[in-house]
């Protein structure tokens, strides 16, 4: 099985969010970056498990600048066989999806994995876009995936529950919590990652149709109103009369 896992780089979860350039750019100064947790913990690990069981290869793909190589190397250390970086400074989800699809069309993967969303832009768009550009089925927010030959059985999250379905490869799948368990790279993996191939390819021309014009921080919260633990009737009154939420 030939598997592709698309990974992105996101600020670490405790990173301080601020902006520069008159609030038009995310301020990267002092920010630590990580591999997007949904890509690393669930998408990549499930792809590796399938390969370990049925053979084949796992390729990691990132659309981004050279600075992203550290994140890619981590993916190789966790166990991917090789990596591709499409050299670009991505600004929109459709741009990224078009780069992924151009690469994937030429390579012919059986399955394309992504995380259900990135923890920075939270758009949840790229997987669906890649599927459409490839004219393939898309399973979003998968919590289980079993493959037998070229038929897969998948469970995905739906409003208020789960749906189990089956389909044949090729398809695109986005990973949610439950699909796999996080793996920590070991020393041997980290050493081997240095020798695994990381191919850098040029981006194909695509224009950005939707871009961020400006950022702002949410309005500051006013100070908490403390309620005496022996007077819950007062809290109930405030929720009804002041906050009007019940």
């Amino acid at each position, binding site marked *: 099985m030939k598997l592709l896992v698309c990974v992105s780089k996101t600020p670490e979860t405790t990173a301080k969010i601020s902006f520069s350039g008159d609030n038009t750019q995310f301020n990267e100064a002092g920010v630590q970056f990580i591999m997007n947790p949904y890509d690393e913990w669930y998408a990549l690990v499930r792809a590796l498990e399938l390969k370990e069981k049925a053979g084949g290869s796992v390729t990691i793909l990132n659309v981004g600048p050279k600075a992203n190589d550290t994140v890619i190397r981590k993916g190789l250390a966790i166990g991917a066989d090789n990596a591709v970086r499409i050299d670009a400074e991505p600004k929109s989800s459709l741009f990224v999806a078009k780069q992924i699809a151009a690469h994937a069309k030429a390579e012919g993967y059986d399955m394309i994995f992504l995380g259900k969303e990135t923890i920075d832009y939270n758009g949840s*768009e790229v997987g*669906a876009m890649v599927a*459409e550009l490839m004219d393939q089925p898309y399973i979003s927010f998968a919590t289980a995936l079993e493959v037998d030959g070229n038929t897969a059985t998948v469970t995905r999250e739906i409003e208020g529950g789960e749906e*189990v379905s089956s*389909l044949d490869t090729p398809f695109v799948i986005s990973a949610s919590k439950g699909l796999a368990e996080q793996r920590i790279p070991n020393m041997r993996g980290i050493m081997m990652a240095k020798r695994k191939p990381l191919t850098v390819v040029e981006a194909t021309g695509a224009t950005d*149709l939707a871009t*961020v014009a400006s950022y702002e921080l949410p309005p500051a919260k006013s100070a908490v109103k403390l309620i005496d633990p022996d007077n819950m009737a007062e809290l109930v009154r405030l929720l009804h009369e002041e906050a009007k939420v019940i």
Partner: protein
Amino acid sequence: MVLVYAESPKGKFKKSAFEAVTYGHKTAQVLGTECVALTLGDAEDAGQLGKYGASKVVSVSDAALNNFDSQVHTAVIAGAAAAVGANVVIVSHSANGKSLLGRLAAKMDAGSVSAAKEVPTNDGAFKVKTNVFSGKAIATYQIDSDNKVLSLMGNAIQPEEVGGAVAVEALSVAVPASRITIKEVKTVDGTVPLPEAELVVSAGRGMKGPENWGIIEDLAETLGATTACSRPVADTGWRPHHEHVGQTGVAVRPNLYIAAGISGAIQHLAGVNSSKVIVVINKDPEAPFFKAADYGVVGDLFEVVPALNQALKDYNAAN
């Protein structure tokens, strides 16, 4: 023209469909055009979407569309957009809507914005706001293409009745065959799913163990709220994974979020900071969650939670 896909799971509209049509109507006003609502598969009383501002409702009632396949639905929605001459398409930011957004954007080569939280503006450029960095910031996106696709964040705007029911027109659009076979659908009836819940009661490690959750469930029942938890609680199997709220779990945006025995780590706050009102119950007055709270109770949750439940019952009985 603005086209709004109004989801009708099991043939019935939910509040999110009325929110989407209200949003579509307001977007159409900004653009100086009209809003058409689209239903797929079974949709009871589709004409009522007119009340929220749809000038007409078009429907593709093929029973195959009762099963969701993003590929099939995208083909039909894009076909409907072409048939009615719409260049702006709006969907709900629901589990299914999320996968339609990206597919539609790719199919229509459209600029897209995920989880829009305000009505767009159009002074020289088409701009829409959405939360980014898990709610730690807000981005204003600009869409430059003629075709535009937006998904609307749940509970961001309230449905507004502006007129009466309208006619429903059957639309003939080719429905391609699905390549996905649905084998089983498991839904929990009776409770509102967490991403859509307007009232949420959540608890963390301060609960000490899963056997103590009765007081949380009782409080949720009195309120008609959905239960949730912090990540370590789900990871240790005290509660199911789908209750895990935060940056790496579900993002909620209820009117009221009650948190008991949760410290308020930054990753947890990232999933709850779109809540309108937050109540924090914690025995530690220094717990970081109090900084994000509207109302706080410093006390032992094993006493405070049952007392709050009783006070709510007393209030309900008296009013």
